[in-house]
């Protein structure tokens, strides 16, 4: 009887869903995403994410640039790990040209790619903890990232937007004392990762916010094209570095951490473990760095030595033609994929045989993670949106391009 009355009371209560607009300028929206939420109290009934507030016309710009000029634009896709985007595009163009990078170049690309992945994961974990109220872990993570950026600056000359890769090679060899520099920094990095681990992993508040929130099932993950830490958190060991080895990953021993539940906490743990694995990969690569040239021996794509440019007419013409007309990539199309910080970064590149790409389409991991956000937060509390957004690690430049 009493139960019935209570039930009726609830039915009689005058409630109606409330519309709440989050973003596009919101501190927890990782840049510029707008979410129109329909709320019942504090429960999210419906979510309608709207993106495009950072659309900068990446593809249009690439179509008007030469093949080498595309690299600066790729830097700014996932701006937390620009090197990985660089190498992804270099690989796509090399597949179209049917050339292979030299072993030394491949090893350097592996090292610098993993350095970039460290920066990506540190930022994700640090910013995530900041948005949940843990400022200390953020400061530690940023300290680690500064170390990584120092290393990047030594090698490439820039902190963030590096433009380090070239088709068929690299801008430059790594610095001669890279191994020493890395040895010093890796000790501190491991300390920082341990510190962040201690601050967060067993923290009661952090656990309550992360565990059991933002769950995605295996079927949904496959259907929505998930990849990277988000896919692996559901228990599927889908890692392109293992499944389709590229660069030097084939000869390197590393583990792929896999989650079980597909919730935010699993994604966090996977990122923490991947950082340790990245350090392991870099250690191995530094130990067995092959000698030899960095750029491949192909005058179609690689700029001649400066000495030849200044002292011979052939070298001069070669240099001039590559710079002004661009690298002549044979007509064709390729879908090339690499494992970036957030997941599978694919380039669908179409060439019509001239110095400008006909189309450069990016399959960015974030763009395929975001459409399933309603599966994760509908029915959850409004506070769960923040950790879910953090662990998906939506990057504005990548999703809107």
């Amino acid at each position: 009887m009493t139960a019935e009355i209570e039930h009726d009371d609830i039915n009689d209560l005058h409630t109606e869903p409330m519309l709440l607009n989050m973003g596009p300028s919101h501190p927890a929206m990782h840049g510029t995403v707008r979410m129109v939420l329909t709320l019942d109290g504090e429960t999210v009934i419906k979510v309608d994410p709207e993106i495009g507030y950072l659309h900068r016309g990446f593809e249009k710009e690439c179509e008007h640039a030469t093949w080498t000029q595309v690299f600066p634009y790729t830097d700014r896709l996932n701006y937390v790990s620009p090197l990985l985007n660089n190498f992804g595009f270099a690989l796509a163009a090399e597949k179209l040209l049917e050339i292979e990078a030299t072993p030394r170049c491949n090893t350097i690309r592996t090292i610098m790619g993993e350095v970039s992945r460290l920066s990506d994961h540190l930022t994700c974990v640090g910013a995530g903890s900041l948005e949940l109220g843990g400022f200390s872990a953020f400061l530690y993570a940023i300290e680690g990232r500064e170390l990584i950026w120092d290393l990047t600056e030594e090698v490439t000359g820039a902190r963030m937007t590096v433009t380090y890769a070239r088709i068929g090679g690299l801008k430059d060899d790594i610095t001669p004392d890279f191994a020493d520099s890395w040895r010093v920094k890796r000790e501190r990095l491991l300390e920082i990762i341990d510190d962040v681990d201690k601050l967060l992993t067993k923290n009661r508040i952090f656990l309550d916010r992360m565990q059991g929130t933002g769950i995605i099932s295996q079927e949904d993950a496959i259907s929505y094209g998930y990849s990277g830490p988000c896919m692996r958190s559901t228990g599927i060991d889908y890692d392109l570095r293992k499944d389709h080895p590229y660069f030097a990953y084939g000869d390197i021993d590393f583990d792929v951490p896999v989650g079980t539940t597909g919730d935010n906490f699993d994604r966090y743990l996977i990122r923490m473990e991947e950082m340790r694995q990245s350090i392991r990969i870099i250690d191995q690569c530094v130990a067995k760095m092959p000698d030899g040239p960095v750029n491949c021996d192909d005058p179609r794509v690689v700029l001649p030595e400066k000495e030849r440019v200044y002292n011979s007419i052939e070298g001069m013409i070669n240099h001039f033609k590559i710079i002004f007309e661009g690298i002549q990539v044979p007509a064709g199309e390729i879908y090339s994929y690499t494992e970036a910080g957030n997941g599978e970064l694919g380039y669908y590149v179409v060439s019509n045989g001239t110095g400008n790409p006909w189309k450069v389409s990016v399959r960015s991991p974030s763009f395929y993670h975001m459409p399933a956000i309603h599966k994760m937060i509908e029915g959850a509390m409004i506070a769960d949106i923040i950790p879910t957004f953090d662990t998906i690690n939506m990057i504005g430049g990548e999703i809107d391009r």
Partner: protein
Amino acid sequence: MSKSDIKKLGRKFRKVVLDTSERLGMDTALIDKDAVREILEYLRDEEKMQYNMLRHLTCVDYLHRDPRFEVVYVLYSMSNKTQVVIKAAVPEDDPTIDSVHDLFGCANWAEREVWDMYGVDFKGHPDLRRILMYEEFDGHPLRKDYDKQASQPRVELRKTERDAIEEFKTFHKQQPEQGSRS
């Protein structure tokens, strides 16, 4: 592995698979656009193939070629670890193709993006709105005949000092031409 898949597909759908190619290690099938749902569903559900993940969906605008557009589906099999590329040609005068949003979840947004950028209409899509541009935007910016710098501001832009400098420059550029004509 996937080579046989693409051949098998060609044998099974002889009428709608127009061409297959294996260039650069990409197993590609060019299909009739009306059969796209049928073929993607077959590739997804067939026991031995299981192309259950749509890696990428995009469109290419081949201006001055008939048919003008090509919608590209990159499919991946999680169990066999293989990839096939399905391409469907879409003509300019009838830029429509069937939506596959119910076969692959991620197709929802990817189709919205293709509609936004190229103006290819996906029949049966539940929510075909612009995704990267804004509602009042006119045209489809990634079409090759859309001018790169043709922006459509939403708000009135202020005049800045740079505008004055540019006006000054263009004025001085025009002056000698007028002089030479007279």
